């Protein structure tokens, strides 16, 4: 067997990985352009697009007025007109002003037109809590979006996915929404110099384990991995950690294969529990692996409150490694 030649690995932040992905996309495809509030001069509210205006010019890095509905709708129109727009919405809470365009136009046009038009649009937005931004900048609505047929929903949780998901999303003929958890932008991770596009189809097993499956995504992946380390060290529990990566369509096969082996599942979702993504995943496990389960599926979700500002309250509202550890002990029959 030939020896594998590996490209050198460097350490980059999630933000830099996203920026590299934009740069590559803008270089590779003249149809690609970025638009949104403060993506140009300001450099992006999370500094993802810093420097791109200077590099690619104002035709391709377009600052928009504050008008979420219209610049998202314009992204849909531009996609219909042959472009490959990337639309950045500052924060998931603001995307609610564009919900009409996303749900009533982007998601419907292909089916409603009898298959005549596709909408190859990529929308990116920050999601999630953890930075004390309070109740209008920190919610996790990706589960809502994952409810909508016609959309593809992805949540890069690693530097590699931050680097690789954008190009794949741009090649997708249908609308893709990329949710970037706001606590991840400064996260550092290894990235091969030749890192490129990644698939958007499969969940990834980020840690293999025998005893319990932790199913999570986005900003909660790090917490789940931390909990798994603690469980291994302190309780001798070997947890498997699944990063969903794509929230619609869900990779049910990977979830079920894991649960059938471990016979236990804990879902970690920063969304609220009621009517949320965790409920959907739990239902799929029940439908597909009920007789393989040794314990009811458990969920660690955000407390059902608007995200509060004060640090101790925000921490208490969110899933944490400690609450994940407790939930795992619960399904293992080791109640504290």
């Amino acid at each position: 067997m030939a020896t594998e030649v590996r490209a050198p690995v460097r350490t980059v932040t999630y933000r830099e990985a996203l920026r590299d992905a934009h740069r590559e996309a803008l270089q590779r495809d003249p149809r690609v352009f970025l638009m949104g509030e403060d993506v140009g001069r300001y450099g992006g509210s999370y500094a993802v697009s810093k420097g791109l205006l200077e590099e690619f010019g104002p035709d391709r890095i377009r600052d928009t007025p504050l008008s979420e509905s219209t610049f998202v709708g314009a992204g849909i129109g531009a996609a219909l007109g042959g472009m490959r727009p990337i639309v950045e919405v500052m924060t998931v809470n603001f995307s609610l002003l564009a919900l009409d365009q996303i749900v009533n136009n982007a998601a419907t046009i292909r089916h409603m037109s009898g298959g005549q038009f596709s909408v190859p649009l990529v929308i990116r937005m920050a999601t999630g809590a953890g930075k004390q931004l309070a109740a209008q900048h920190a919610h996790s609505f990706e589960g809502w979006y994952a409810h909508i047929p016609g959309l593809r929903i992805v949540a890069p949780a690693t530097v590699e996915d931050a680097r690789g998901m954008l190009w794949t999303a741009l090649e997708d003929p249908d609308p893709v929404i990329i949710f970037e958890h706001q606590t991840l932008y400064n996260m550092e991770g290894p990235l091969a110099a030749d890192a490129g596009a990644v698939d958007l189809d499969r969940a990834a097993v980020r840690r293999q384990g025998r005893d319990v499956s932790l199913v999570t995504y986005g900003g909660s992946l790090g917490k789940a991995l931390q909990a798994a380390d603690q469980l291994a060290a302190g309780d001798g529990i070997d947890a498997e950690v699944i990063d969903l990566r794509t929230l619609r369509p869900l990779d049910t096969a990977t979830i079920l294969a894991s649960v059938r082996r471990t016979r236990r599942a804990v879902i970690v979702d920063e969304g609220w529990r009621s009517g949320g993504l965790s409920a959907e995943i739990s239902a799929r496990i029940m439908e597909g692996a009920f007789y393989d389960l040794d314990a009811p599926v458990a969920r660690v979700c955000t407390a059902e409150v608007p995200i509060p500002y004060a640090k101790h309250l925000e921490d208490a509202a969110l899933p944490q490694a400690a609450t994940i550890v407790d939930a795992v002990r619960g399904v293992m029959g080791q109640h504290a």
Partner: protein
Amino acid sequence: MSTQPATAPATAAHRLELLRQMLRIRRFEEKCAELYSAGKIRGFLHLYIGEEAVAAGALQALTADDAVLATYREHGHALVRGMAADVLMAEMFGKAQGCCRGRGGSMHLFDGALRFYGGSAIVGGGLPLAVGLALADTLQHRARVTACFFGDGAVAEGEFHEAMNLASLWKLPVLFLCENNLYAMGTRIERAQAQTDLARKAAAYAMPGKTVDGMDVEAVEAAAVRAAAHVRNGGGPIFLEFRTYRYRAHSMFDAELYRDKREVEEWKTRDPIATFDARLRLEGVLTDETRAALDRAVEKEMDEAVRFADAGTLEPIEDLTKDVYTPR
């Protein structure tokens, strides 16, 4: 659909064509109303009768490369743009031979070949799309126009203001075509707008705005042709307000409690078809025989459309989830 925008002076043939287009819309929709009562067409049905001059006139300004967006009251726009009446009627019947395989129905007509992008039933929802289509043309250096029709009701929506602003800010080739029929369902314009002179709104976006008699097909055409030339030549977007009136109920479920029948009758004295017919006769362009021949041809076209739709087949249920996503 003409492939070249009309230039003055209009020939007799072109003027007769304007009349024919208005007659097609009216006859098509009269059929629809009958077929609704007969249970062949269901769901929401919004008739354009009374407003025909706007679609028939304004669409003359476009070439085949231009794009059109319209509302849920868009049978007329689709017909004038070039959608065959039979394909349109099949869509009304929910048949697989319809323009959208029966998935859209009356409110969601689409046709890729005609660059007809709906058929939108979210009031104001089409305007941002128009801005984006025009942006795509600008970025790809294509001298095309995107014509976007919407009602007076849409002018109250935030998307109207956002889209007008963005189109003007970026000097995009959008033709904003407001069909002011005085009512948004049962809400008369005075009860919805602090400023009822809608054309004046354009000034807030540094955009030219003009009020046009929407009951006069030639006035509509002339205004649209001028505006389209300006837009096409890089002059930036233009807002045209067409003053018009809908004779029929808002939809088939409307008891019309909000207006006086006399108002409807008064507007009917300005009927776009009758007044244009009279003008053409006065100017020696139209005779009884020509008019009768036109009527017969239109009647035949619509009868055939109904037969085609009736004979159409239903999309197989196995295809229900087809095209939620693009096959890959």
